[in-house]
Structure formats: structure tokens, C-alpha cells
């Protein structure tokens, strides 16, 4: 039998993996009893139900692949650059300050899209920095570090 990798199949596999992971990790906590549950009891119940849901979906989508379609394309470029931009911001905000972090965020996220001229980008960087500093630091008095030094 040929297994079709449909959306439902992948969802089921993902759910099953998360469920199994929860059961395994949940084992390290005290289970307790039904009348006096420890921290592990509820997670293991959740993980078990989740695994069963995942299994059901995998079996059902293998038996009836026509009920679900496959993923046709993944937006790799926007995905990578958007997430890298956000992650970079998290690295810079405390060590290098708000201005550097915002500039990096706007520049890297620009790579996620494909449109717009360089002049526009320069205006965007300037505008975003002014908005961020103006609203959050001066408008709302949130004590954010501004400069790298």
C-alpha cells in the first residue's frame, strides 16, 4: 500500500509525536493517584488522548487519502527571513538596545518579501525607528535601552 502524505496524515503524525513526547516527559513527574493527583497525572492523560487522536488521523488518512489534499508549496523564503528577523531582535534588544534591534528587524524582514526599492527601505527603517522610539519610549515611558552604549 502506498502512503499518501496528505495534510491530514501530516497533522496526525505531528499530533501523535507531540502526544508521545508529552507522555515520555510526563513520566518524570510524580503521578499520584486519581484522588490526589501529582503533577504528572494530567499531562499523561492529555498525552495519551493526543496520541490516540494522532493515531486515528494517521490511520484514517492512510485508508482514505482522497479526503485530504497534499501541501503544494511551502513559503520557505518568507518563513526563514521573518523568523530570523524576530529572533535577531530578541538577541539585540537587551545587549544592543532598541534602535539597533528595530533597524535589524526591518532590514532582515525586508528579505522576506521581494518588492520595494532601496529608497523605500531607507524610509521604512527611519520611520519604524522613529515610531518605535516615539511611541514606546517617549509616549509610554517604557524604560527600554535605546543605544548600544
Amino acid at each position, binding site marked *: 500500500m502506498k502512503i499518501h502524505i496528505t*495534510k*491530514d496524515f*501530516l*497533522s496526525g503524525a*505531528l*499530533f501523535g509525536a*507531540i*502526544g508521545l513526547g*508529552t507522555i515520555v*516527559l510526563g513520566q518524570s*513527574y*510524580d503521578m499520584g*493517584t*486519581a*484522588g*490526589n*493527583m501529582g*503533577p504528572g497525572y*494530567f*499531562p499523561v492523560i*492529555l*498525552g495519551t*488522548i*493526543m496520541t490516540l*487522536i*494522532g493515531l486515528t*488521523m494517521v490511520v*484514517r488518512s492512510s485508508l482514505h487519502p482522497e479526503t*485530504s489534499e497534499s501541501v503544494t*508549496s511551502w*513559503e520557505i523564503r*518568507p*518563513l526563514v527571513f*521573518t*523568523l530570523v*528577523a*524576530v*529572533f535577531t*531582535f*530578541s538577541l539585540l*534588544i*537587551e545587549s544592543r538596545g*532598541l534602535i539597533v*534591534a*528595530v533597524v535589524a*528587524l*526591518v532590514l532582515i*524582514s525586508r528579505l*522576506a*518579501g521581494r*518588492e520595494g526599492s532601496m529608497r*523605500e527601505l531607507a524610509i*521604512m527603517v527611519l520611520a*519604524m525607528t522613529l*515610531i*518605535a522610539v516615539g511611541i*514606546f519610549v517617549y509616549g*509610554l515611558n*517604557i524604560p*527600554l535601552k535605546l543605544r548600544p552604549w
Partner: protein
Amino acid sequence: MELIQHLSLGFGVALSPMNLAYCFAGVLLGTFIGVLPGVGPLVTIAVLLPLTFGLPPEGAMIMLAGIYYGAAYGGSTTAILVNLPGESSSAVTCIDGYQMARQGRAGPALAIAAIGSVIAGCIGTLLIAFVGPPLGAVALKFGAAEYFSLMFMALICSSALVRGSLVKGMGMAFCGAIFGLAGTDVNSGIDRFTFGMDGLAEGFDFVVVAAGLFAFSEIVVNLGVSLKREVLTGRVTNLMPTREDLKASWKPILRGTGIGSILGVLPGTGQTIASFASYALERKLAKDPSRFGKGAIEGVAGPESANNAAAQTHFIPTLTLGIPSSATMALLLGALMIHGITPGPQVMTSHPELFWGLVASMWIGNVMLVILNLPLVGLWVAFLKVPYRWLYPLILVFSCIGIYTVNMSASDIAFAAFFGLLGYVFLKLDCEPAPFILGFLLGPMIEENFRRAMLQSHGNLEVFVSSPLSAVFLAIALGLVILMVVPLVRKQKDQAIAEG
């Protein structure tokens, strides 16, 4: 009359100049983000939540609520003029609203959507005022078993009423509950699922999950497709609906309000399902169903009313029981908690000025919305021309700083990037994020009440059926599951949803 006393108190609060200003700011911002495709009320409220920390609690709630129902309103403008739902709840308005616009009747379509919305909004608010106090009184008697069953029912509702199969919806709900486990276990004080990270000791912050799941993943998907927008602007000339339009619309408006109000009270059902249900009903009742999809005004009047009625009645379980009926409602509850007010039935009696002030502000806000929307429609249309490449850096900057300011924690931003990835995978696999987010929110509360109920009953599961109220909640959940397994009902639900 106690109600009149309450309402005069409420209007006293809502009509103070500061609160009027907060209300206006809220609905203005709500309309703005409702018009902009790709920016929803959930993300906006999540990101702006830190900005309201400094306001008094009434002002903060009035403004956040204004953003919420203002967005439900503004979403219809985009749906009608651009065939793009500004909010998912306006998806069904696209069908006939856009066709009306193409026939040069954009004005009447916008007007009917606004009239329906304001009527539904006012009736929905009236319902909060009437139903809230008695429901709150009942809820004061709820024990752990009742709360568990009620929240369990909410999870099943939200799982059953999304696109795709019940199993998939439930998978998302439980997945959310699992992510909600991270952090310190309240009963034992033990860190669970923190992977040794300090930033996870308090669990994932809701703002982090919401921004990742809704803002970041949406940006990725929107950048992948080129948004083609055909704005029908030149044709919004005459706003006045004709006498025939009004005659054809008033019944759908009232029916839509009814459907929306009822569905809105049930926790876990979204506004989207209310508008779809109303559309399906109108088409069934129409003498000539073939007109639908070709610019039938009933197809705008009904769903828009249902959508707005549900938006208002969502406040009923949220404010009276302290149980969020949707993700956005959960954020509002979060805002309450930040101001030191524990959500629950006691809010109405311990903070009457807050509850009734909010209710009164909703009437005022709904009237403001009509004034904002109809004469200023040209202004909103101008915003539609803002290219997405200017918009998404703005969303990113606001989201990142907003997330950071909640706990002043840089690791929160990195977690949000992770939820962005997860949300993107969910979107690609057609997994609806709504049950996930509700599971994430209710999961910890469900666990707490489950453990407490079982502790009281010494491990006997019977406690959940021996209480009549708890049994009723569980029966509703079970009934819904059985209903969804019946092939005919499931087919109709899929059909109703697929038509969007």
C-alpha cells in the same frame, strides 16, 4: 428597577470625558485594523495590551472592547469593497457584498452592513445587561466539577465548529492544552515542561503565543501569495439603501441577531460560525435561493448582524463566568487580571462600575461606529491602498516590542518566533488555530478544576455526572460530538463553511 440603577451607574462611568475618549480611540483603532487585511483584533489587542497598563481598569477595558467590536465592524468594509475579509468573521459577507459592489451597489451594501451591525450590537449589549446578573448569580454556586464540565464543553464546541473534522479540531484543542502545561504546577510547585529554561518558569505568556500564531505566521503566508486587490472605490456614490433594500433586510437582520446572540453565549463558538449559520439560514428561507452569490442583500444583512451580535454576547460568559469564550475575550480577561481584578461572577458585584460602565460604553461605541463608518468610508478605502510591504514591518516592530514589554524578557520574543513556525505549519496543514488557543488558555484551568473535583470526590469520576449542571454541560458536549459524527450534519456544516 435594579437594572435602571445599574445602567445609570454605567452611563455615568461611560460618559465621563476620559472614558468617551478611550471608547472613541478603541473603535477608531478597531475599524482601522478591521479594514486592514492581515491584521486582526486578536493580534492588535495582544500587542497593545501593555500600552493599557497605565490606564484605570474601566478605561482599559472600554478601549480594548472598542477595538474588538470595532474590528468586527470594519471587517465588512474590506469584504464588500475588496472581496477580502478584513476579519475571518466577515468572510461570508464577501460572497454577496462584493457582488453588490460590482453591480455599483457598494453604498447600500455598506449601509445595510452598518445598520445591521448597530442593531445587532445594541440588542446583543441589551442581552448582556439582562442575562449577565442572573447568570452570574448561578455561577457563584459553581463548584470545581461544574467549572470543569463547562470548560470541557467550550473546548468541544470550538473543536467541532471549525473547518475540517472533529478529530482534527480536538487534536488542536488538546495540543493547545499541552502547550499550556509548561511552567510551574500550582499544586506542587514543581516546574513542568520547562526544559530547564528560566524564561519558561511562568509558562508561555499568552501574548507570546497569540503574536506567534496569528501575527508572524500570517505574515509569512501573506508574503508568499501576491495579494491582488481590486478596490472598487469609484463606485461608492450613493450610500442610501432603497426602500426595497430595507424591506428585504429587516427580517434577516433580526434573524441574524438571534442566531448570533445564541451562538455567542455558548463558549467556544466563534463569530465566524454565527455568520455562516445566518447565511445558510437566509438562503434556505429565500424564495429564490439562486440569487445568493449574485448580490443578494439578505446575504449581507444577516451574516453581518449575526457576526456583531455574537461579538457582543461573547462578553456574557466572559464577564459573568470568567470563562473566555474566544481568544480575544481571553486577552480582555488577561487585561482585567493585570489590573488586579480576578475574572469571575463576583466582578459584577465587586466592581459594578466596571461591568456596567463597559456595557454602557458598548452602546455608545456602536453609535460612534456608524458615524465613523458610513460618512468616512472613503478614508478607510484609502487605507486599503497601503501596500502590504509597508504594513508587515510595522506589525513586526509593534509585535516584538509589545511582547518584550509584557515581562521585559528577551526570551519571550524567541518563543514567539517558535510559535510563528508552529502556526505556519498549522496553517499549511489546514489546522485551525482557534481551538488551539482556547485549549492553551483553558487547559490550566481545566486541570486545576479537574484535580480539585477529583480530590473532593476521593477519585470518583461520578462527581461530574452527579451534579445536574455539570451533567448538562457534559451532555451538550456529547450531543455535539454525536451530531458531528452523523454524516448528514457534518456534510451540511462543511458545506456551510466551504461556501466562504
